């Protein structure tokens, strides 16, 4: 702590205010799913835009002037810079105001925050992505990162389940992966009221019966509502996955993003700086985690 004091004296005026939102222009709003639109943003400050580098799984704090800030995971991969894509669910006041905005409106962005997926650690391994419902939003960044660095990974498998085809995020984009040979893309819906769904019908964990996963050589990244965690984790453990090769992304209330405001703490970790990506081992050892 004595050292901190010296830092304080030597660095009187912190150059950058970490809480300052940077202006970002809405470029496009894609109405993917009712109440789940994809907002494409461009940072207006060239210097900040050039310095902005994120890892798959990280998030930003999104400001809507007058409504405050909320943490939103970045759905676009770092391998496709220039714009940021945020998949935002309409859930409250801030997101309600965002949904009333359109192209060329300006919002605030700061970040990126959080640890992100340990991509260097996964390098050379098989990668299994399991998403349920809206859980695809944070996993999409990792999916495209892996496809854009295809040589760094062995097999890539995506299992994604939604209630109906109309609830599936990034539906067209993911359907276009089904025929690719460098990824095994398994899409399922609980039920198909459209009658025109050409992929699997049935619950997400059922996809485990349709493909081979080698737990000894695979990292699994899971994201979804609590029920997905319950059943998918059950399958992964039954297959013999060790608990620190199962990665999951958590959601918490956040006001700062930098380990100060206290809202996102779980047990003794802050979701914003120690997460939002945790191993299952961490998650099961922290109270209130899932």
């Amino acid at each position: 702590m004595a050292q901190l004091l010296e830092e304080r004296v030597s660095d009187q005026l912190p150059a950058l205010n970490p809480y300052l939102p940077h202006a970002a222009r809405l470029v496009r709003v894609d109405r993917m799913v009712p109440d789940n639109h994809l907002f494409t943003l461009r940072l207006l400050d060239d210097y900040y835009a050039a310095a902005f580098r994120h890892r798959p799984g990280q998030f930003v704090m999104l400001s809507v002037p007058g409504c405050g800030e909320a943490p939103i995971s970045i759905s676009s991969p770092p391998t496709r810079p220039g714009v940021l894509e945020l998949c935002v669910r309409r859930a409250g006041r801030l997101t309600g105001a965002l949904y009333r905005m359109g192209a060329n409106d300006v919002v605030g962005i700061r970040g990126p925050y959080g640890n992100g997926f340990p991509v260097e650690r996964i390098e050379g391994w098989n990668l299994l992505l399991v998403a349920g419902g809206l859980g695809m939003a944070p996993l999409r960044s990792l999916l495209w990162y892996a496809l854009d660095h295809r040589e760094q990974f062995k097999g890539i498998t995506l299992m994604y389940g939604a209630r109906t085809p109309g609830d599936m995020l990034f539906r067209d984009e993911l359907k276009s992966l089904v025929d690719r040979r460098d990824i095994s893309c398994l899409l399922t819906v609980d039920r198909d009221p459209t009658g025109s769904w050409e992929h699997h019908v049935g619950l997400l964990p059922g996809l485990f019966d349709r493909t081979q996963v080698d737990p000894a050589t695979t990292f699994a990244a899971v994201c979804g509502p609590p029920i997905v965690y319950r059943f998918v984790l059950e399958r992964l453990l039954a297959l013999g996955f060790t608990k620190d090769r199962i990665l999951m992304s958590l959601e918490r209330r956040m006001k700062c993003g930098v380990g100060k405001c206290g809202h996102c703490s779980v047990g003794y970790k802050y979701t914003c700086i120690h997460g939002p990506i945790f191993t299952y081992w961490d998650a099961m050892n922290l109270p209130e985690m899932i």
Partner: protein
Amino acid sequence: MKILKLPKQQLDYFASVLQQFGEVHAPVKRQGKYVFARLDRWSDAVLEYNRTILPPKKYLLPPRETMFCYRRGTGYAPASENLDRKIVLFGVHSCDIYGINILDEVFAGKYPDPYYRTRRDNLTIIGIDCTPDEHCFCRSMRADFVDHGFDLFLYDIGDYYLTFVGTARGDDMVLASKTLFEPVTREDIDEYKRRSEAKRRAFQLDVEIRDLPEIFEMEYHADIWEELGKRCLSCGSCSMVCPTCYCYDVVDEVELGSRDGRRVRCWDSCLFSSHALVAGGENFRESRASRIKFRFYHKQRGFVAEYGRPSCIGCGRCIEACPVKIDIVEVLKMLRGAEDGATA
């Protein structure tokens, strides 16, 4: 460390010297209690007090502070209200200085907070020793002495204050007082030791914090949390008066009849029901029991994992402030004593 002594009868002269270092604030008496406040005259200062209602954190993290102003078109601009105010806080107890050191770790360490750091740089701290009362357990929390975090620290040794000079700024204050300070003698040191031993014996409360994190892990599902949840009113008083509770909320406030406004942060408490509420209505700590457990857990167990010590400093403020008499020392003793808490 540079150690000198200051004659007590020269204290008011020394206080006048301090004015060139900033506004002088010290404990003053208000309706039977003490508060840190700006002094109109030195004689208002009360140097023998048990504890102030609010800890010094109010100078570093104001209860309400504007972070940014935003205007349509120009976006967010940092606000700097009162940031350049230089304050000399006179008469801070060791536990409260320890509390500031903990805040320093959180706010001036990794990802430094510019508002906090500017305020911290502008705050001069003159510590003073004290006699424990019936709610003090700083000794158990290892906060009854501090070796840093102050500019000067005064120990009462009778006709003098033994003065530890902690920083260059503290030394400047000594030098600005010219010949006021005198060298320390053997007798002064002996007197200090005698009083230090008397202070140690004056503690009425004692709680063992060794292996407390392990006990918290084992008692995570104990009945005691449900019982405390039934008593706790979720009023958040304990958080407000706690020297190391730093949770804050951030809200955008729009000016009436305009689309411009300000982003404000204000004190928050993990005991409030909205603390862990996320969009869509999921609340990770919906029950009062889970929230009071979280508060204890974060202070006594979580903080140890992150910073190597509990964030509780044993000042006793939460014991005094709680309207339903939840007593942290009793809770810790119950957890440690097992019979009362481990039936689950």
